[in-house]
């Protein structure tokens, strides 16, 4: 079984978000980048399934510029076998999906795993695009993934419940908890990651279909209005008469 795991390089979850003075770009200064937290579920589950089967490969794929390589190496340290970086600025989801679809097709991958969504752009869309480009099913977001031969059984989260879905390879799934306990690299992993293959390839396909013209921060809160705990019922009156939400 050949697994392709797509990882995106995103600001650490504790990052205070700021933009350049013209509000056109995200201000990367001083920002720590991490593997998108959802993608860690995809990566760990692929490694677990490969180990359980006793054969197969796990390839990680990122569409990004050279500054994403530390996180690609981290994925290799966690246990992926090799990596591919499409050397391009990830312009938009469509552009990223085109790159993933091209690599998936060329390498004839059986299982293409991603995270539910990127925590920077919150698109929740690349998986469906890739599935459609390749003409294969997509299961998103998946909370559980088991494989038996070429058949996968997944639990897909729907609003208010879940669906049990079964699909044959090749397919795309986007992963979220509680699929597995994401692994962290150990010392041996970090040592071997240095020599694992990381191939850099050029981008293909059509240009992006969307452009960000401007970023903005949400309006600041007015400040909290405190109500005395002894008089807690007062809060309910304020919620009805002042905030008008109950």
């Amino acid at each position, binding site marked *: 079984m050949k697994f392709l795991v797509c990882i995106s390089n995103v600001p650490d*979850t504790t990052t205070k*978000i700021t*933009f350049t003075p013209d509000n056109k770009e*995200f201000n990367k200064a001083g920002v720590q980048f991490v593997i998108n937290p959802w993608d860690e579920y995809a990566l760990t589950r692929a490694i677990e399934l490969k180990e359980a089967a006793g054969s197969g490969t796990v390839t990680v794929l990122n569409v990004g510029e050279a500054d994403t390589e530390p996180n690609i190496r981290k994925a290799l340290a966690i246990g992926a076998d090799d990596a591919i970086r499409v050397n391009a600025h990830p312009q938009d989801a*469509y552009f990223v999906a085109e790159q993933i679809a091209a690599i998936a097709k060329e390498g004839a991958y059986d299982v293409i795993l991603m995270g539910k969504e990127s*925590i*920077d*752009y*919150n*698109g*929740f*869309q*690349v*998986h*469906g*695009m890739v599935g*459609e480009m390749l003409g294969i*099913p*997509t*299961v*998103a977001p998946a*909370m559980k993934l088991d494989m038996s031969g070429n058949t996968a059984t997944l639990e*897909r989260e*729907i*609003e*208010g*419940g879940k*669906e*049990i*879905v*079964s*699909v044959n390879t090749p397919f795309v799934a986007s992963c*979220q*908890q*509680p699929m597995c306990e994401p692994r962290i690299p150990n010392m041996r992993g970090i040592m071997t990651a240095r020599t694992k293959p990381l191939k850099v390839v050029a981008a293909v396909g059509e240009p992006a*279909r*969307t452009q*960000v*013209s*401007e*970023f*903005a*921060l*949400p309006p600041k*809160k*007015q400040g*909290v*209005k*405190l*109500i*005395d*705990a002894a008089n*807690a*019922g007062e*809060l*309910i009156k304020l*919620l009805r008469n002042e*905030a008008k*939400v*109950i």
Partner: protein
Amino acid sequence: MSVLVVVECDKGEVKKSSLEVATYGAKVAAQLGTTATAIAVGEATEANLAKLGEQGIAKVLYDAEPRLKDFVNNAYTKLIATAAEQEGAKVIVLANSNIGAAVGSRLSVRLKASLATNVVDLPKTDGGSFTVKRGAFSGKAFADVTLSGDRKIIAVKKNSLEAQHEAGKTAEVSSFSAQLSDADFADAPKQVVMQDQAGGVLLPEAERVVSGGRGMKGPENWHLIEDLAKALGAATACSKPVSDVDWRPHHEHVGQTGITVSPNLYIACGISGAIQHLAGVNSSKVIVVINKDPEAPFFKAADYGIVGDVFEVLPKLTAAVKELG
């Protein structure tokens, strides 16, 4: 050139988020000088679909194929694509839900359309361009995105605009068939398992949410959260550590790695307000924080706060709600 709106139905009712989507679609249609047609998915009744006229929908298409009752990615995609072609739709509006995202992303490739998800406001359409505001960086920012294609697909974030209700207006409901075959249902779910919703309010659709963190001390104390939720007609939620240790089910976990909610009212009880938690709730209209630590970071993101012990405060709040009647 029309606007096609995808409305999700469940047990005969149009979902609240889809009433918002219908309103959004009707407003976009008015901006573009055209009309809005809806395509209904899920289990619907003709009477409820006709009521979409109140949101400004002119016509509703409905395929009564029984296998469309549950979500089937390929079948839904083909159904909506066929409706879009028939109606000559240039703009398709759907909910930023698990169904909307799954279908919208496939449709964008099939129909060669530009897609914007997580959209929070009506488009700016001056000078022929089409720009929408969308949430980014997990609620910490917004991005204005210009959609360049001839066709556009917009997934509207829940509770971003209020559904309009023009009483008495009805939409024409017409039956529609996308000629779906067995092959289109190959990825149909084997089984659908719905959760027991506390008080019957579905968290992602809820207008009010009462949420508990580690400060609640243990699952045996959750009746305090549930009582207040019930009195308010609210859904219940929790922080990540609470679901990690199984005090509460995973589907109640909100935040960066859980679900994102944007209710009118979010009441946080014994939750510190870590940045990853805030990411899932910070687009709530009004945030109330109850925490015994006056330095808890959540107070900075709150509109109202009570510095106090949840075990004393919660029963008082529940009693006060009941008094309101």
